[in-house]
């Protein structure tokens, strides 16, 4: 799903101040029926993350934390079964899972003498049934299952998606009989920065020679693509030569501007592949 910058901007425009819930996603799908769900979710998730990065700090001032905690206590004091925490998060425009973390941390501070360690918090978020307070456990759990951009479940889904697409790509490479070395093998050889796959014999995709393929199970927007270029792709280019990046959930068309310089973007496994013909000497 390759979008023009304008198309992308249109989608991104609709995502301003939208809470990361399944209801929002449903509305987004209705608004852009022609786009794939996965693409929309990926864009939504990335836009939301950008938003959270921008506003993260203001939710973590001690005043903000105190006020959230107070509001939480008041809310559950009135009705423990009501979605107090979730509504609070939506109201202040913050991710429910992250709000749950703030409140949980504050709660533990109050009930334990030593401030809770990060790993304790994480493990309680992964398994809220271990939270000593039953009401809070339910509230936290509700936040986590209703958050479609943050939280342990979402993290797991994202990780699984990335992993699955790597396997998918591997299978496609095998199917095309292209021999390769994967990341694990390369790491075993001592490479520190490696793409997902290095082709043992380079191929030409749409007329461009490529040596490596990186799988990205996300949408390639400007922000993430530039970060990837800086942190990964150019490093790969330096080490291994030109290569191909597959953004499985699409990318902004205008970003595919480094083809001549050696970074090729695709939204699917390429079909136009030319391989080295062994033994077929030129006439």
């Amino acid at each position, binding site marked *: 799903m390759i979008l023009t910058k304008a198309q992308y901007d249109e989608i991104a425009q609709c995502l301003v101040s939208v809470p990361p819930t399944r209801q929002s996603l449903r509305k987004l799908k209705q608004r852009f029926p022609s786009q794939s769900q996965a693409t929309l979710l990926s864009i939504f998730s990335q836009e939301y993350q950008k938003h959270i990065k921008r506003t993260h700090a203001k939710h973590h001032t001690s005043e903000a934390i105190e006020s959230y905690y107070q509001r939480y206590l008041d809310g559950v004091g009135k009705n423990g079964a009501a979605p107090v925490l979730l509504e609070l998060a939506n109201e202040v425009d913050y991710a429910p899972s992250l709000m749950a973390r703030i409140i949980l941390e504050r709660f533990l501070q109050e009930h334990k003498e030593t401030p809770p360690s990060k790993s304790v918090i994480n493990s309680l978020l992964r398994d809220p*049934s271990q939270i000593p307070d*039953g009401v809070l456990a339910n509230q936290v759990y509700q936040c986590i299952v*209703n958050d479609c951009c943050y939280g342990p479940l979402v993290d*797991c*889904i994202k990780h699984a998606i990335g992993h699955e697409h790597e396997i998918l790509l591997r299978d496609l490479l095998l199917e095309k009989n292209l021999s390769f070395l*994967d990341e694990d093998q390369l790491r075993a050889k001592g490479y520190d920065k490696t793409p997902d796959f290095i082709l043992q014999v380079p191929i030409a995709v749409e007329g461009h020679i490529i040596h490596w393929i990186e799988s990205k199970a996300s949408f390639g927007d400007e922000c993430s693509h530039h970060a990837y270029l800086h942190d990964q792709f150019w490093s790969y280019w330096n080490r291994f030569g030109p290569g191909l990046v597959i953004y499985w959930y699409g990318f902004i068309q205008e970003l595919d501007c480094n083809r001549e310089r050696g970074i090729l973007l695709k939204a699917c496994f390429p079909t136009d592949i030319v391989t080295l013909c062994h033994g077929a000497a030129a006439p």
Partner: protein
Amino acid sequence: MAAVLESLLREEVSVAAAVRWIARSAQSSEEDAGEAAALRSLQPLRKEFVPFLLNFLREQSSRVVPQGPPTPAKAPGSSAALPGRPGGPPRGGRGARSQLFPPTEPLSAAAEAPSARRGGRRRGAGPARERGGRGPGSLEEGVGAESLLWAGSRRPRAAGSPGSPSRARCDPPNLSNLEEFPPVGSVPPGGAGTRPSRRINPTPVSEERSLSKPKTCFTSPPISCVPGAQPSVLDSSPWGQGPAAGCRSLQEEREMLRKERSKQLQQSPAPACPTPEPGSTLPTRTGSLTAEPADPAKVSSRQRLELVALVYSACIAENLVPNLFLELFFVLQLLTARRMVAAKDSDLEPSPGVLDSLESPLFQSVHDCVFFAVQVLEHQFQAMMGQLSAACSHSHFVRLFQKQLLQMCQSPGGAGGTILGEAPDVLNMLGADKLGRLRRLQERLAAPQSSCGPCPPPSFPGCQGFFRDFILSASSFQFNQHLMDSLSLKIRELNSLVLPHPEPSDEDGESDVDWQGERRQFAVVLLSLRLLAKFLGFVAFLPYRGPEPPPTRELQDSILALRSQVPPVLDVRALLQQGLRAHRAVLTVPWLVEFLSLADHIVPMLDYYRSIFTLLLHLHRSLVLSKDGEGEMCFLNKLLLLAVLGWLFQIPTVPEDLFFVEEGQVDVFEVDTKTSEHGLDGVPVVDQHLLYTCCPYIGELRKLLASWVSGSSGRSGGFVRKITPTTTTSLGALPLRTTQGLQAQLAQAFFHNQPPSLRRTVEFVAERIGSNCVKHIKATLVADLVRQAESLLQEQLVTQRQEGGDPGQLLEILCSQLCPHGAQALTQGREFCQKKSPGAVQALLPEETPAAVLSSAENIAVGLATEKACTWLSANITALIRREVKAAVSRMLRAQGPEPAVREDRRGCSRACEHHAPLPSHLISEIKDVLSVAVGPRDPEEGVSPEHLEQLVGQLGQTLRCRQVKTWQHALLVCPCMWLITRATLAQGCYSKDGANIQGLLAFSPQFLCPPAEQHLAKCSVELASLLVADQIPVLGPPTQHRLERGQARRLLHMLLSLWKDDFQVPVPLQLLLRPRNVGLLADTRPREWDLLLFLLRELVEKGLMGQKEIEACLDSLHEAQWPEDFAEELATLFNLFLAEPQVPEPQLRACELVQPNRGTVLAQS
């Protein structure tokens, strides 16, 4: 200008007067009238004298092989200002010397022309390969004039085009750039000792350079090197600066070689003094084949040189030269000159008539150059050090010094290697074997007779002596300080250099087989460090050195008190401790020993150094050679450390009692000779050659034995030097002792009359096949053993879990079982080489090769390949197996995690699986949606259809059962051991027996379902079950039916139970079901229905998913939570019911669960 110089040379004018004349415009009164008169007439030229002199010297020296880039000549304006050539454009971009040749001397140029023309033409036509065969020196020598001419004639648009400013005129050499310093001696291979400057210097593309590359000259026929137009161009070249190479026949080369040898024989073994003839030591050590040792006796016109040197020195002293360093550079170039461009002494034999005239060349030989340089240096050095006032100058100079030190003192393997290596066309005729003998012979001839017994005092052999004397005669405090700083820095840098050694996980056999590269690099770094440390020690302790320890106790104590306040020049103790900790003692200790060997008498008594000695002593004690086990330091590494430490403890400055001191205070640092995986100590970096290089005194043992064998002792200093004369022709006459030796000689003889390509082919094939053989053994035999290790490990783990054992022990057991199988490697290796080599030789040799030749070549290739492979294998196979098994074991242990049992029953897809199962991420996402709808908040119209739920659980089953068979193919490709197993099992048809192993291995191959995803799926499925039990899932459908039918719920629970039991391969957190939060879900329902929970608990016990006791414990802990009173009561009833109902067979349970009225419901309603 020339007139001034001439009058100087004729001694009409004194040097002092000349300099005064140059330096001051006004004449001073003390001047001699005659001189004044002579000079007054030249007054207008005064300001041009210095540029003239400098250019003159450059010009004169241009026929001498310059080392490195030519020193830029002086004064952009000078040549333009010379009369007779106003504003003449520069003639070339590169050769500043030729460009600035004084055209004011048409007479002398003309006078010289005929001979120059003669020489030039002849040299031009001479065999070009000579030019190429000479190493760095010859590469540069042609550049000055020859290539310039080529550039002019062939490439009119090259650098020398008018208007383009020449490099020489604009850029003085960048002294901060070490690369521009003249290379003396060849750079040691590996180059680790001389790290390139970090600064990126734009490399100007130079046509000239590429043209004068020795290689091109070497391979192409001589004529083609010389363009047709060249002879005429050469004719116009003044001073005979034609192409570099003289025409020497092989006979002449041999003659030179012979001379060289005899010179080296005569050379005294003691380190030579630098002055007045430092050159005599320099070139012999570093030179190439044609290096000519400078000899003061051969200086052609001593007087003239002395005079010019005096004037030149005076100019330098008076700061009349624009760039001090440039002159220093130039002088050093002269000092390090190797040979004349003009080859024949006879050509330029100065006749007495022209002795005093400028018409005869000033520098006629290396001897002249060196003599001149020494003269100048004598006048200047101390003086120059005085002038180096600015700190930055010092530091620049120190860098040059250091670089030069490393390069000159480190020509590897003495002169032998370079000499023989670089004249292949002469010496190849002797054959490789002869070559080796010749080299050994030469080494023995060149080696000093004896290195003063088995424990010589520290000395500065060879050209190290020059540098020592340089430091001594410069005696500049600033210089020494900068030198110490620089040396310390370099030592730190080299000492912490990460030396590559093969990673244990390295899959590539290359690094195992071709170890030499790493060894060589280590050797280079180690030798550099030793050299630097030696000089650091020398300079650092120089001020304190004296022949004897202080006479009185009081004096000694006061010195001690004082010295203990002085911080050490380099914190060697920290570096030593660091080295020991990082298991790099094999690198750190040898240089530290060199450093300490130059300490003065007081040093070992200082607390700081005493602790170092103690540490070293302790290390010494701990290096027991006979200990040879896992983690021990390699034998030769130990031996090297023992040798150097032993030597150190015997040095006069180290008090004897130190060694025999009671070891009481070792608590400084615990010495641990056990090596870690990543330390250098455990890697066999030291070879015999390095050992002998570092500790030449070990060779004394051999000499002693040799002298005993030869039966002669006492004569000629005790040891006899036995050299058996051999010649090429006497090859057949030599007694052939063994069949093997005979075969080797036959093989040599075989190649003798075959084209060289045959030999290269055979050697190449042997090299590659040998290497491939090792890789093959790794991929087959070793991989097979690794697989055995894995299956053995599986068994052991099961036993161990019951008994509780240590994985480390397991590894040992495995290795002891498997390593003996390594012996098969040699047989298999031999077979491999036998099978593969002939084909390769056949393919690479011409079709027309006679059958007999071909088969001999094949056999030799087989033999060589086998030798290479088997040598490596016999030395390394055990270690290799050990390493691979270790890696496999740790991989398995890691993959299994803390609960190895989980992995045991890994399964692949069933045969029927079409791999269309939904992706795990999709399922997690779907289940998450159901959970979020159930937990709420939700819109009124939101809900889940029962069909969707069933479909979801069904899909979960599919996903859990689809376990990666698709990538089998690839797994086989990438994992040879898997391939082996498959092959073995298919061949034997024993699926049942080894099938489990395949499945076990499959677990490690990539699959869509990764463990974290599976864990989350497990957790989500339990949450789903909790919601089902509590009837919390809102169902889509008619408004009346918002709840799931009991039957549907029960069916779904059954499905989940079956998944938990059969399909999940990670632990399922079933205890979640009985957490207060999940049980609490029931509290909200009215009426509460407990039957599903009871059913679920029973099924869990029934299916063995949870134990009765475990459930009881969970239920018990539920009481601790705070519940509404009625809920707590019902919970207690449920608990009792669960307890009361014994673990019963199926029918009773069925009756309990399914017969109406449902007990749970009754319970809830009662």
